[in-house]
């Protein structure tokens, strides 16, 4: 038939045929094909023959030959059967199903929130063309030996040097966030928010595109502006905006481009882009000294780089390190370390200040993630617990199935399917709940509201679906394994095997875990609420109301002070080197004259108005007097320092001398009451006010509280008049303080809500268990009753087990949450609430109460039941 060498057909094709073809046909077909194959080899050659063989195999993909058909029919039949029995079993045990579904739905709604939140955050900034190659330069600022502070910005100098000196960068853009103001065009004024951007903006951040204009040249020349579509319509209506001239903050700009609206999931957003050259020219005019090009000028400028393909970010980082080493030598006290940050790790990313737009801490994200996982686990425990408990009732069904021929796998999948049906039902309710709680969640924190919209997209629903199937698998796994392992003989005898009893302990453990978690949540919520109220109401030792602190930024203090004093609503003006309560400060070693003791003394240089303005209480002595000259003579110390040097009373300290190491010898002229110099989480330090005429960084204004808005405007215009073009930077004291402690408020809202949810879930679970126990022991109770047991003793008998579990849960949760807050969350805080019996046990009491009511309602019903009724049948 054929000559020459014998050839084997392609092995993969043979294997494929064996895989899909009915076993009865395989041998025949494969044989025929192989015969054909060898004929083909002689006729057409090996290559064509192989190709023809493959083709022939594929042609056999016809219904008559495919194996699956045969198997699928049984599978569909079994699936239908599982589905039917599952639905019936769910319907038969309405109460238990309801408990499961409600518990799962509540916790799932929280998880859905989390899923939509996380998936939205991770979609950020992915719309640019090469997100992996885009990086931004951020800075870590270190003041003396303090903890370095992360800043999202960097200096213009860094950007310029990177452009000029460092290879491997395809393009880079320098941005400044201060391009905002009123734009006017023919008597029409519109307020715009935007950025100054250098020419390569659209090259680096390629996700932003121009609808009109040339992306390469739009930001090239001075006084050019690019508007977003929306901003252009606001200003020009339907007229064409291109080439028109508008005035922004009294500077004429020509519109050179219309940009597409930046997507919501971009951490940078803008309504207008001004060309960076314009800004640089402005800066050059304002300050002849070239201040704006200083290494330390970190605050409002951002640098984004598009690296060359194949450039390792590490090599750019190395150049940055070298640059900072050079530049840090030239400056005093401060150190600045620039660092490269990938675009994809900005949102969510590390906590940084001076963000260009939206920001979200990744630590917040992981905390929320852990908390929601705990919540969903609690609900899954409920399902596991109740299903295992009710395994009894299902054992006959399983026994019959096994006798008829079901194998372990089939029983396993049956119960998994049941769990998935429950969790899908729960998903429907959870989606409704999700829409209910979504607005609340968005309101928790302004940061959340800025970052997410949580609009349900089809992809999101797909995630939800996958999630709920996963939850079903998770919740159903343990019961399915347990039930599929039942021996048919045992199952049919209806005698609970010893295995079943050992599961009881497992169930108890799960209940204990649930209640421990609920207790931890409720205790945490109580403690953080107390700490927040404590922190906000804490007496710092000085006045914080209506005090505005303006950063001098090197502007002549006397000139500014005179300008501010002229404003009628400014009651007092005081200058200082530093601010109270900012967390950092200078310190020096000091000794008391005639004493061997030395101490670190924190100090602040102030003028004679500072102590009255801040309303520090002088315990002895007097305030500084206005004195010209730079020679330092006197100091005002705090009580803490007195104690350190063993001076009995404030008045005894007056006129003693303090020697500063490598510094002057100062006479103590006053003693102030202790106050919080750094922040309330830290100890009160040894502290001294020193007097100086010149070393001031801040001007503090005590404002008249009526009509603060107008006053602020006046203060700002007064500043602009004297400040040589420096930005006006001012902040109210009390606002600053409140934002410092708002974290406690956010913690207690979130934890409180989660506590509510876990408690509801745990109580639902407890209710289920109590009902179940009461049901199964109904006959036993009746017999006991007939023999003379009192109702009270029966309730005690039934409830004892549960009360034990609650007690154990409390025993675990109370020390754990005490430890958590005492040694972790609040451990750094010095001024904090003491965690006492009330904080720890009010939650425990609450949960015990709910638990007792739940158990008692069920056991009481059972204990009251009429034995004649329950024992009649059988």
């Amino acid at each position, binding site marked *: *038939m*054929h000559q020459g060498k*014998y050839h*084997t*057909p392609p092995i993969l094709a043979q294997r494929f045929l064996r895989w899909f073809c009915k076993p009865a*046909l395989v*041998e*025949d*077909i*494969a*044989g*025929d*094909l*192989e*015969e*054909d194959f*060898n004929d083909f080899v002689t006729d057409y050659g090996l290559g064509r023959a192989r190709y023809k063989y493959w083709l*022939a195999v594929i*042609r*056999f993909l*016809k219904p*008559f*030959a495919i194996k699956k058909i045969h198997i699928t029919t049984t599978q569909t039949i079994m699936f239908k059967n599982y589905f039917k029995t599952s639905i019936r079993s769910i319907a038969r045990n309405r109460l238990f199903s309801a408990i499961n579904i409600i518990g799962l739905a509540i916790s799932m709604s929280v998880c859905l929130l989390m899923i939509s939140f996380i998936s939205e955050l991770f979609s950020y900034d992915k719309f640019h063309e090469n997100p992996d190659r885009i990086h931004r330069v951020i800075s870590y600022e270190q003041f003396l030996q303090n903890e370095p502070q992360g800043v999202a910005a960097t200096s213009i100098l860094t950007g310029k040097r990177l452009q000029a000196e460092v290879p491997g960068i395809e393009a880079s853009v320098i941005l400044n966030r201060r391009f905002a103001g009123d734009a006017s065009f023919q008597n029409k004024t519109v307020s715009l928010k935007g950025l100054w951007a250098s020419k390569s903006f659209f090259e680096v951040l390629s996700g932003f595109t121009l609808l009109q204009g040339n992306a390469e040249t739009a930001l090239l020349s001075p006084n050019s502006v690019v508007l977003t579509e929306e901003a252009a319509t606001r200003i020009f209506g339907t007229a064409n905006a291109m080439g028109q001239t508008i005035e922004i903050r009294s500077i004429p700009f020509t519109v050179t481009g219309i940009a597409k609206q930046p997507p919501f999931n971009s951490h940078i957003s803008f309504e207008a882009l001004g060309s960076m050259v314009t800004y640089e020219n402005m800066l050059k005019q304002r300050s002849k000294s070239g201040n704006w090009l200083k290494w330390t000028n970190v605050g409002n400028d951002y640098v984004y780089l598009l690296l060359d393909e194949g450039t390792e970010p590490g090599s750019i980082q190395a150049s940055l390190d070298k640059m900072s080493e050079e530049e840090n030598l030239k400056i005093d006290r401060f150190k600045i370390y620039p660092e490269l940050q990938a675009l994809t790790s900005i949102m969510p990313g590390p906590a940084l200040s001076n963000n260009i737009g939206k920001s979200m801490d990744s630590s917040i994200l992981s905390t929320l993630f852990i908390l929601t996982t705990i919540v969903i686990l609690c609900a899954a425990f409920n399902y596991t617990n109740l299903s295992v408990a009710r395994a009894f009732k299902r054992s006959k069904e399983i026994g019959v199935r096994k006798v008829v021929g079901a194998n372990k796998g089939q029983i396993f999948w049956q119960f998994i399917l049941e769990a998935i049906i429950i969790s899908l039902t729960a998903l429907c309710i959870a989606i409704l709940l999700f829409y209910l709680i979504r607005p609340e969640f968005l309101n928790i924190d302004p940061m959340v509201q800025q970052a997410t919209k949580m609009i349900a997209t089809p992809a999101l629903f797909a995630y939800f679906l996958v999630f709920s199937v996963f939850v079903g698998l998770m919740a159903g796994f343990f019961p399915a394994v347990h039930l599929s392992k039942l021996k048919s003989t045992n199952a049919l005898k209806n005698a609970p095997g010893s295995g079943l009893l050992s599961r009881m302990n497992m169930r108890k453990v799960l209940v204990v875990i649930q209640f421990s978690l609920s207790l931890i949540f409720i205790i945490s919520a109580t403690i953080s609420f107390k700490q927040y109220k404590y922190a906000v109401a804490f007496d710092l030792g000085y006045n914080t109301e209506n005090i505005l602190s303006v950063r001098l930024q090197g502007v002549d203090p006397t000139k500014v002070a005179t300008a501010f004093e002229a404003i009628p609503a400014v009651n007092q003006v005081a200058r200082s080197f530093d601010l109270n309560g900012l967390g950092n400060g200078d310190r020096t070693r000091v000794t008391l004259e005639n004493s061997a003791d030395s101490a670190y003394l924190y100090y602040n240089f102030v003028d004679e108005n500072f102590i009255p303005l801040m309303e520090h209480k002088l315990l002895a002595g007097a305030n500084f007097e206005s004195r010209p000259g730079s020679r330092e003579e006197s100091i005002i110390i705090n009580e803490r320092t007195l104690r350190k040097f063993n001076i009995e009373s404030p008045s005894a300290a007056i006129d003693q001398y303090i020697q500063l190491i490598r510094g002057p010898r100062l006479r103590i002229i006053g003693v102030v009451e202790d106050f919080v110099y750094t922040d309330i989480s830290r100890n009160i330090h040894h502290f001294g006010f020193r007097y100086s005429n010149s070393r001031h960084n801040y001007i503090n204004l005590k404002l008249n509280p009526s009509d603060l808005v107008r006053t602020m405007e006046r203060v700002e215009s007064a500043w602009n008049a004297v400040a040589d073009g420096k930005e006006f930077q001012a902040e109210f004291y009390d606002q600053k303080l409140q934002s410092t402690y708002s974290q406690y408020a956010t913690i207690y809202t979130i934890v409180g809500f989660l506590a509510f949810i876990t408690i509801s879930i745990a109580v639902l679970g407890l209710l289920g268990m109590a009902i179940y126990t009461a049901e199964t022991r109904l006959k036993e109770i009746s017999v006991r009753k007939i023999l003379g047991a009192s109702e009270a003793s029966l309730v005690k008998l039934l409830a004892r087990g549960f009360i034990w579990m609650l007690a154990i849960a409390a025993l675990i949760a109370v020390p754990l949450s005490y430890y958590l807050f005492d040694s972790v969350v609040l451990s750094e805080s010095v001024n904090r609430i003491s965690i006492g019996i009330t904080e720890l046990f009010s939650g425990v009491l609450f949960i015990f109460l709910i638990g007792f009511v739940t158990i008692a309602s069920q056991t009481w019903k059972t204990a009251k039941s009429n034995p004649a009724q329950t024992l009649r049948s059988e």
Partner: protein
Amino acid sequence: MKGTYLGEFQELVLLTILVLAENAYGVTIQDELGSRTGRNISRGALHTALTRLDEKGFITSEYGGATAERGGRRKRFYKVTNQGTKALEESKTLRDQLWSEVPKVALGKS
């Protein structure tokens, strides 16, 4: 009577099996059919037909000896059952009957 309906291709396959007598298996049937009809018959189509015929009970099959040219696989020889022969005969009778009643005019053989 859908179950016993004999399609045109199936009829051809049955007849080929009869013609081939003792040597009717996949490859030979295909070759025979191919050469007689001049049609290019695919393996898949042939096996579909064989499976249907088997389901209807018109053919039976048994395995022969293993051969090297089939990679050590056995040949599956097909035989037409009595039922199959009957079906063929019925089909032939039906056709003959119809042929006999066709008016000569219609055939253009006046």
